[in-house]
């Protein structure tokens, strides 16, 4: 579904990503792991249009999206979360979800209040899905860290994406919340959404992934079943330094 071919991005000499190729399937959870600075987030930013690759090609459902602006990528069906929490803190939790509806719709469509009631109901459903129903009217900034991560997932779902890119969804989150978030990832996979997840929590990522991609120094060094990858000597070396 998502095809990445020979993508490279260097920042003033820092070789963040070099010649990365891989394909991401729908209806599966793919883990993306690697030491800090491996280039994982940079790869996400290129897929989502925040960085234009120096070279290479990114195709989504056989449509080229290389260098398309972020909003167009989101509208094409790729949702993402950020490593640093991003929510609109002054808006209510419900309004944060409402923001995500109709990705790529024209500006004029947003002037109409027509479908607001319908969208509000749908947003309530999505908040129920992540277990934040009782926080709907609270400003997002008042939510706990873990709850804001859940809110990010609800926003992504409101985009109705075919593919979801999650940048460290359980980092800094307690055990209970981690279990909850991993459960949500499985639910979304089972609905047919492709999930690509960056995660440092090895236990979590091993448990949840159907497939594992390992990056180090800007390159893919392993790609396969989690059990297989775990045995890979190059991976062990990269992690143990």
């Amino acid at each position, binding site marked *: 579904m998502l095809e990445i071919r020979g993508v490279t991005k260097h920042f003033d000499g820092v070789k963040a990503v070099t010649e990365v190729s891989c394909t991401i399937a729908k209806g599966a959870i793919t883990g993306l792991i690697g030491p800090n600075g491996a280039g994982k987030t940079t790869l996400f930013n290129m897929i989502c249009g*925040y960085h234009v690759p120096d070279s290479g090609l990114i195709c989504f459902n056989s449509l080229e999206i290389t260098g398309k602006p972020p*909003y167009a990528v989101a509208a094409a069906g790729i949702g993402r979360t950020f490593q*640093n929490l991003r929510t609109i803190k002054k808006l209510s939790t419900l309004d944060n979800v409402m923001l995500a509806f109709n990705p*790529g719709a024209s500006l004029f469509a*947003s*002037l*109409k209040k027509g479908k607001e009631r319908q969208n509000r109901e749908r947003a309530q459903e999505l908040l129920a899905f992540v277990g934040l129903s009782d926080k709907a009217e609270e400003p997002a900034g008042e939510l706990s860290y873990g709850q804001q991560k859940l809110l990010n997932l609800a926003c992504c779902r*409101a*985009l109705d994406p075919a593919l979801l890119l999650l940048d460290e969804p359980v980092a800094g989150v307690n055990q209970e919340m981690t279990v909850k978030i991993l459960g949500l990832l499985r639910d979304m996979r089972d609905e047919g959404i492709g999930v690509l997840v960056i995660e440092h929590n090895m236990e979590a990522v091993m448990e949840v992934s159907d497939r594992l991609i390992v990056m180090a120094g800007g390159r893919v060094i392993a790609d396969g079943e989690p059990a297989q990858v775990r045995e890979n000597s190059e991976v062990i070396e990269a992690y143990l330094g």
Partner: protein
Amino acid sequence: MEYLLHILIMIGIYSIVAMSLNLPAGFTGLISVAHAAFYGIGAYTTALLSLKAGIPFWLCLPTGVILTAAIAFLIAWPSLRTRDDYFVITTFAFQIIVFSILNNWVSFTGGPMGIPGIPQPSVFGVPLPSHGAFLCLVAAIGIAVYLFLNRLINSPFGRILKAIREDEIFVQSLGKNVTAYKMAAFVIGAALASIGGGLYAVYISYIDPTSFTVMESIFILSIVIIGGAGSLKGSVAGAAFLVSLPEILRFVGLPNAVAANVRQILYGVLLVLCMMYRPQGLFGEYAFNAHPKERKEVEDA
């Protein structure tokens, strides 16, 4: 009585202009110091059309709106493609250019001599008889502008503007063309400012470029900040406060010449006090500089 009416009319006009700036600057976080230029374009359009072409006032206003919107669109197009920090500089440059044109294109704008003898507006062919009637007109238009903006900011469109102000990277990730929304906020704001300009021109019946300087832009921005960024009521309150302030100074017995200078200092002091002790202004919910720098870049390293 006439004096009180005059102040109320000026408060009404500045309310319209400040509310219109609040849409881009207060709600969207798009700081512009070109608002006096748009206000001026509105004033000159109405003045020139009514004086030189005999076009009735109620046709001058919409013409000004369309012309101003078009000009705002043309400058927003390139400047919104630059980084945010440069946007305010681009608006500054535009403000300077507009002032120079008003001041130097003597054959068209009258240059520093301005345009005297702008005809009074008439409603259905009957000239507005008094300042009282004109105040009603300003109030009616002011209320219309308020209702229009209020509806806008409570629509999905307004929600997106408020979100852009806080974190545009996040809004992009939700499939919103942030540049288009900023452009719309800027253009709508400019277009509405021109209505205030048209009203000012026919009310004062004489305009010259000194009313549309960068100082004036900053005065309008001060109304928005002191009244409260992101609050339409705040803009009205801010206009009432800042417009009547010099009158109060005069009232307490300061000679005119002194009052004029004290006025500028007082505005500056007020702005600093506001930033220090009440950054959200009189009625605003948000501090004016609410978006921290890191929210503007996808660092995420």
